[in-house]
């Protein structure tokens, strides 16, 4: 669901194909019949934007027919935990949870907490809801639990009530999915889950690029926990990333609200005045996040070296603190208002790749300077003379620098792929002419900036002055023309971490300390370079074809599957011989198996939780979800999310339909950008009656920068088109290959109509709703050019991860051309 894997991950799709050949059932739930649908055993149509209703339907199916994996759910999830008395579910409150403040459009999640005395991390969990920072600590008490699951405020009963109305009939009404197909999906999932069998769910941006994307993934998490599919071979939820190393870019990261390794970025709003306060509030006493101070201090030591001392909080004050939302979408809006002076763009192409293209391009005109670093001249670099707005170059005040960069084969480095696997690749050839690797550009920019600020005494410049910045190799590599290339391995070693005193690489993050004696750039990557000359990401041992632990390096600590403790029963025996993965070996007194256990290695299954400990000591020997404060998989999320503890169906911000489940139409906390240049259609807008979804095709790549300059790829998908059903085409008098104009409240574009049975109308309560599809690969540079689908997309933000909603919005179409 939410993924077109065959088209967008064709190489990875060989594995589902192999599984299919060995008898697995592939189900594709998608608004379009795509190449993935063609390869699937079962295609199930769903209206864009209704994924939570569908998954909620499955959850209800499993709960109401008592098909959940009892032993797993009782032992490994928070089903038995009891929730606060103040909690009011969306079911009883018109689609809104307790704690909502309509004025600020945000939730106070205090009432979602576990029942009992106030917990130490509750108050700041809302503030620190970075990726992975999900902690309510049961530290001061064990959460109140009812193992019979009968307590009305137990998570299990709340869950049951919350999804009771998500019936197969409701799914048909909301999603437009025929009831019999939905029931077929439910049946296949249930039959392929349990002790002997497991099912996996794959998703991609079809889920994330919605105004409640994180909640869709949560819904999948609930379903997989109920079916016992987490932490087990063949199970899990697979996030298919959109680019080759986008996983790496969130790990290291390029996200504004995170420091490397998913540590929350210090923030003024959260009151992170001192390192001590930041660490106290960010660390969670229960679970592995209790180690946060070790990771943070080691990070500061990696960044500031000898200048970071205990007396100056290891340089904590040199890190700029967040003052608000600095995400891409918000920054684009600010840029359009002239609030941003300069912009450096690496491998990104907002002029046609980001939502509301017209606004994005206008934003570029407001800059003083723009540096575009890419393989080709992007739409972003060329807006000043080639944008469809037809601006006169003499009227553009922005000074633009286009820096040519190196392709993957022209530089050393790592890719981190979807399953957290780091693979190192070697440079094969020098980049042409003046082109340099991204690493070269960043390194030499930093070097020159440091030289410029060498003598500055201003406090805000001290961080730059003290930044460690020594990545040039000891010996220059005489094979290459470019002699001042920094060493990618030196960067990887810094990420791995070392002791400060003797600069010895550490074996993994267990060796990190919070007293300044270790330095580590990205704690989760620690172990990738455990010894001189031992780059684990270089390993290419094919192994058994099963876990293949010696191929590359998988974070954390080369574990291939997270939470794999859940692959055994509470006593440490595999749930089944067929699905065995790791297990407790009583003779040796440790966990062993095919993969590295994601659990303290000698902690016996019957270990009771320590009442006065910290970290995973607070968990029992049968609590597999070690990053969680209570060690359990969260069916109900007492904290960590900004839009509710349970996934709830809302309509997209733009929808032709009314929410059939709740009076509340759309996400109460998704961010809109109510501005003149970003109008959003009201629900059921008669002027824009059709749903539109955007996507990619195999032949082109994202905004086209890497594919529209390649003749062999361009000829395969040469023109922008809209996919529409024969039914809609007939209604509008459109023939295949006719020119059509697609319009939204933001803009209008012209393209060819590709009339195909692969698109279909959806029926909702007898009403027919049409959906059209738009690939977004084209722009105004390259061998092939064409209209930009993103011009139609509204600026908006999902509240947890700040992503725009472009998988479901509304449009109109007509036959003809713009002019």
């Amino acid at each position, binding site marked *: 669901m939410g993924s077109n894997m065959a088209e967008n991950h064709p190489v990875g*799709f060989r594995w589902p*194909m192999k599984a299919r050949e060995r008898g697995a059932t592939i189900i594709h739930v998608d608004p379009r019949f795509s190449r993935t649908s063609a390869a699937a055993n079962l295609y199930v149509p769903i209206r864009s934007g209704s994924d939570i209703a569908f998954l909620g339907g499955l959850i209800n199916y499993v709960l109401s027919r008592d098909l959940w994996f009892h032993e797993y759910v009782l032992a490994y999830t928070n089903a038995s935990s009891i929730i606060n008395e103040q909690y009011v579910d969306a079911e009883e409150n018109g689609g809104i949870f307790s704690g909502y403040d309509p004025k600020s459009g945000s939730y106070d999640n205090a009432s979602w907490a576990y029942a009992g005395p106030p917990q130490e991390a509750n108050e700041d969990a809302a503030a620190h809801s970075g990726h992975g920072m999900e902690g309510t600590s049961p530290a001061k008490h064990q959460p109140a639990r009812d193992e019979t699951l009968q307590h009305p405020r137990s998570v299990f009963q709340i869950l049951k009530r919350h999804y009771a109305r998500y019936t197969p009939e409701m799914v048909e009404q909301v999603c437009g999915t025929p009831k019999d197909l939905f029931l077929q999906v439910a049946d296949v999932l249930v039959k392929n889950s349990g002790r002997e069998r497991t099912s996996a769910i794959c998703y991609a941006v079809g889920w994330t690029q919605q105004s409640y994307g994180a909640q869709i993934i949560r819904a999948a998490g609930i379903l997989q926990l109920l079916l016992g599919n987490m932490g087990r071979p063949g199970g899990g939820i697979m996030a298919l990333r959109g680019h080759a190393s986008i996983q790496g870019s969130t790990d290291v990261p390029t996200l504004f609200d995170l420091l490397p390794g998913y540590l929350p970025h210090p923030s003024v709003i959260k009151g992170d005045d001192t390192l001590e306060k930041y660490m106290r509030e960010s660390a969670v006493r229960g679970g592995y996040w209790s180690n946060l101070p070790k990771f943070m201090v080691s990070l500061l030591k990696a960044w500031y070296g000898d200048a970071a001392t205990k007396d100056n909080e290891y340089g904590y004050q040199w890190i700029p603190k967040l003052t608000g939302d600095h995400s891409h979408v918000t920054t684009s809006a600010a840029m359009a208002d002239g609030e941003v002076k300069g912009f450096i763009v690496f491998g990104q192409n907002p002029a046609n790749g980001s939502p509301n293209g017209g606004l994005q391009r206008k934003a570029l005109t407001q800059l003083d300077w723009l540096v575009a670093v890419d393989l080709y001249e992007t739409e972003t670099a060329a807006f000043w003379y080639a944008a469809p707005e037809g601006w006169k170059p003499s009227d553009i005040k922005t000074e633009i620098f286009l820096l040519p960069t190196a392709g993957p084969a022209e530089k050393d480095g790592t890719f981190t792929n979807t399953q957290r696997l780091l693979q190192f690749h070697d440079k094969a050839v020098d980049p042409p002419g003046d082109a340099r690797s991204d690493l070269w550009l960043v390194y030499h920019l930093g070097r020159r900036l440091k030289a410029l600020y060498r003598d500055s005494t201003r406090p805000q410049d001290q961080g730059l002055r003290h930044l460690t910045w020594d990545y040039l190799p000891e010996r220059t590599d005489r094979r290459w023309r470019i002699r001042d290339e920094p060493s990618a391995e030196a960067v990887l070693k810094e990420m791995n971490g070392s002791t400060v005193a003797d600069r010895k690489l550490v074996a993994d993050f267990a060796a990190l300390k919070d007293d300044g004696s270790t330095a580590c750039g990205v704690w989760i990557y620690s172990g990738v370079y455990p010894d001189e000359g031992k780059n684990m990401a270089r390993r290419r041992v094919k192994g058994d074809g099963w876990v293949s632990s010696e191929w590359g390096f998988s974070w954390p600590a080369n574990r291939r599957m997270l939470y794999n403790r859940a692959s055994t029963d509470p006593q440490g025996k595999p749930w089944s011989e067929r699905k065995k993965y790791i297990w407790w070996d009583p003779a040796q007194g440790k966990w062993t198996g095919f993969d590295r256990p994601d659990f303290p290695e000698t902690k016996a299954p019957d270990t009771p939780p320590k009442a006065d400990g910290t970290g995973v000591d607070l968990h029992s020997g049968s609590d597999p979800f070690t990053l969680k404060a209570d060690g359990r998989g969260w069916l109900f999320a007492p904290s960590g999310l900004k839009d509710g503890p349970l996934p709830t169906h809302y309509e997209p911000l733009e929808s032709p339909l009314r929410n059939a489940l709740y009076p509340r139409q759309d996400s109460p906390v998704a961010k809109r950008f109510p501005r003149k240049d970003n109008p959003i259609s009201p629900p059921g807008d008669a002027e824009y009656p059709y749903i539109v979804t955007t996507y990619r095709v195999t032949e082109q790549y994202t905004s086209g920068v890497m594919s529209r300059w390649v003749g062999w790829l361009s000829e395969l998908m040469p023109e922008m088109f809209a996919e529409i059903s024969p039914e809609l085409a007939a209604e509008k008098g459109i023939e295949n290959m006719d020119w059509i104009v697609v319009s939204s409240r933001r803009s209008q574009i012209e393209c060819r109509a590709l009339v195909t049975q692969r698109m279909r109308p959806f029926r909702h309560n007898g009403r027919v709703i049409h959906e059209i599809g738009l690939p977004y690969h084209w722009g105004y540079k390259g061998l092939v050019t064409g209209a930009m689908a993103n011009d139609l997309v509204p600026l908006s933000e999902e509240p947890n991860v700040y992503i725009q909603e472009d998988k479901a919005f509304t449009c109109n179409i007509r036959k003809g051309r713009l002019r």
Partner: protein
Amino acid sequence: MIDTYKRLMNVEPPPPAKKPRGFFTDTSLCIGCKACEVACKQWNRLPADGFAMTGNSYDNTGSLGATTWRHVQFIEQAKANSSRQDQRWLMMSDVCKHCANAACLEACPTGALIRTEYDTVYVQQDICNGCGFCVPACPFGVIDRAPKHGQFEPGTAHKCTLCYDRLKDDMTPACAKSCPTASIQFGDVEELQQRARRRLAELKARGETKAELYGMPEGKEAAEVGPLHAFFLLLDRPQTYNLPELPRLPRKTMAQRYGWSAAVGVGFALVGALVFGRRR
């Protein structure tokens, strides 16, 4: 005397025969990614053929040609009702069949078309004079003449070489190498044929009743052109994929055609004699 000729003309002995090599293209595994098309063009340095959308599903390649040696077809099927019953999207990577009795080779008057030691059909570019006889001879419409403007000598014939240069170095042809789902399988033809029979039985057992093999020695399509060394597993009738049910070999019908030509000639002569003869 022949030996002397060979010595004087510096004629190399042909390389020793190898096991026949070919492709088994299993369309039930194709995901239509077109990696084969791109890999083929990249390895063989073939140019892009222009940037025009066809509107025929996702097929913007159109057909095999002088500079397109792999072509992925897209066939959309569904009942024209709202539930789209029996919806399928068939994909098939087409290629030169490297027929055992190759019509193009028989039609070639210059000897430019040869059978290699791998039992594949290959055009020697330094010998082809661009006569074009091979083009109408091919019952599959595979071989094609180079356009007037382009990187090849205008008019010369081109088609898949089964990556002859790669075979010489014991490498897998570019298309098969790049195929992510093993839809294109390369190997010894006999072994591939056995694999194909097993695969068909497997699919039939799974309920793919429409599945069939195309180009096997026992198939009726092999009656004239012989077994195809690039053969296919199809999920529908050959016509669905633009493949002839019975590919003809021009030679087989030549006597008949000469006969017809002669008869027509005689007929015209008779009519001429009758019409013009009287005037005298």
